[in-house]
């Protein structure tokens, strides 16, 4: 199986290929922790302007997959490529996390990781970091260019907060927000980096039914309004089936199925992975 895929991968990367329908692709992505193979030759692709889901039982390697493509971990082997609509292919493998963000991948975390003792607006402003330039001298001298950049960033952040209904708490400390709003803020903060692909790691974890419904609308709205692609890890099946166009299923680090929601729902391999052997 792997023998057949190696030439396919090099074909896709070749210069002669027409505009790639995928914005993000991994080839042969593997991650080994000591003796544990957390990811085993994962080939996953995210199509442009779609919502793709990655599902799997607990401990199957979903978060590890995110960590590998965002540069938090360095994958043991394999490629991660980004295909911007307006430029050449970018290889993300081995880039540090901040560079990956700069290239256009932004993420949220399974366990919310906000900057708790900073305000909501400051959280979003920090998301603007990679799109700003001011350095030490700019900060100290506060020259015109720095002031303008700062004002623009503040405006941009406020607009984001207004768009996603968080402007009324802009000056509250992030830790004082209700849980649902914290989840929402984490998404807004990721959007501030102007991503091409947004990676959401179990955004519905800990939300009640009403909040999950709101989250579903939010995810669809983000995709439409920001014109980006989304890769979603989620346990809530109804959410996944409702929003995603394509689903990848992973178990013990191996992709066991992929396809549109209807197909996945009835795939015996998926059912077995979730419910165990009969």
């Amino acid at each position, binding site marked *: 199986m792997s023998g057949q895929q190696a030439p396919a991968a090099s074909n896709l990367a070749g210069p002669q290929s027409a505009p790639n329908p995928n914005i993000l692709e991994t080839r042969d992505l593997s991650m080994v922790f000591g003796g544990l193979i957390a990811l085993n030759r994962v080939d996953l692709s995210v199509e442009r302007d779609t919502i793709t889901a990655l599902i799997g039982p607990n401990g199957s390697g979903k978060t590890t997959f995110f960590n590998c493509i965002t540069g938090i971990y360095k994958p043991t082997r394999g490629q991660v490529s980004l295909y911007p609509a307006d430029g050449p292919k970018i290889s993300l493998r081995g880039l540090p996390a901040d560079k990956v963000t700069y290239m256009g991948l932004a993420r949220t975390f399974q366990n919310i990781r906000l900057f708790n003792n900073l305000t909501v607006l400051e959280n979003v402003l920090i998301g603007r970091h990679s799109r700003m330039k001011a350095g030490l001298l700019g900060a100290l001298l506060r020259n015109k260019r720095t002031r303008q950049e700062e004002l623009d960033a503040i405006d941009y952040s406020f607009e984001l907060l207004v*768009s996603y209904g968080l402007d*009324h708490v802009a000056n509250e400390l992030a830790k004082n927000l209700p849980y649902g709003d914290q989840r929402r803020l984490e998404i807004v903060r990721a959007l501030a980096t102007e991503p091409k692909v947004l990676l959401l790691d179990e955004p519905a974890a800990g939300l009640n039914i009403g909040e999950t419904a709101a989250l579903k609308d939010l995810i669809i709205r983000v995709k439409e*309004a920001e014109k980006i692609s989304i890769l979603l890890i989620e346990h809530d099946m109804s959410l996944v089936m409702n929003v995603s166009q394509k689903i990848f299923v992973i178990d013990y680090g191996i992709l066991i199925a992929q396809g549109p929601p209807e197909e996945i729902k009835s795939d015996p391999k998926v059912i077995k992975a979730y419910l165990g052997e009969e």
Partner: protein
Amino acid sequence: MSSNTPKMSAKSRIHAEVRASLAAALWFCFLAFPLMTLSIRPGNAVAFSIARIPYLFAAVFLLTVLWRFFLRRRSFKNVSKAVLESEGLPEDLRPGPKPSWVSVFMSSKYRSHMVAFLLLAVSVIPFVSSPYVVNVMVVALIYVALGLGLNVVVGVSGLLNLGYVAFYAMGAYTYALLNQYLGWGFWVCLPLGALTATLMGLLLGLPVIRLSGDYLAIVTLSFGEITRLVLTNLNITHGPRGIGNIDPPGFFGIDLNGSVKTFLVQRLNVHPDMNVNKIYIYFIILAIVVLTIICVFRLENSRLGRAWLAMREDEIACQAMGINRTRAKLTAFALGSTWAGLAGVVFASHITFINPASFSFLESIMILSIVVLGGMGSIPGVILGAVVLIILPEQLRFFSQYRMLLFGALMVLMMVFRPGGLIQSTREVYIHRGGSRKNAPVPEAAPNRGGRS
């Protein structure tokens, strides 16, 4: 019967508290028994007396009761606040963080007036007070600069640096050595001292990039001690004997204690014993402090400063937001050290004699205490912290032998009852000016928004 229950439980709770306090007092007396009962009389005779034990017992008992009372009250307060919040009060009724009086003052429209008045008051001090007061003020201001510098590293960036004094020493020795051997003046050495300290900060920063928390603390602590030992053992620094006769800052080649002093004493009624060089140094360090405050304030509300704050809050999330953690750490380390270097040069010119003993680990702890006591990340807090920890002990000479004891007690109390410091840091409030973001989606009343869930 049922109405009696809460009373009973309160009573039994008091009993439990008293029992716990009694136990604590007993235990303490047991631990301190030899210390409190045995004493050595002239002629090496050992005397034994238990007369002091009852007093000790009573004192410890009372303190423990008070301590437990305040702890209980504090946890009760927190609980009631948490309950209020979980009941889902409307947002504007929820007990938010109370604004400190400083933040109220700083955001008032009289801010610039007050700052000007404060500066004026501070500028008048050397002309109306004694040489002693000026000396104490210079030292206090040096510590303000040190505190503000360390605040960048510890308070803003969250990097626990226990070897900060090494950079202070670097500045002081840069000036002392260049002055001693090459005869270079203060104004040349001030930027050089700052530069040396900055470079040392970078140099130390490189190997510790991957460390944080306790590990970083241990490495920086060792670095501070190594620096002190090197200074003690080098020949050119004259080892423990130190370097003396360091020149005061030059003032266009004029001897300030000549005709300038005559003028000041006769016309402005300045104290006749005043060393005018000290007044000069006072204004130099005051200027450095003002400049530092402006710099730190600007940094905190800039792209770089926010990167530091993000790093303090969450090292992983900050990288995911596009922040280069290596660069953020290095700049924080190096910049924080810059102020230590500046303060060191001023310190050397102020006391005119330095030796490695001035740069012990205790000094690092002192500066850290200023930051922690004042309020991590809070500029007014650090200033107040320096004033409290430097000037107060001077005023309370009576306590001088118990100074460290008081210090420790104060720190413990602070950490329990006011962990944010005397003046807690507050965040800048931003106002939405309106404006447009490219491709902004139409705002839409988001469903299920607000505190109720």
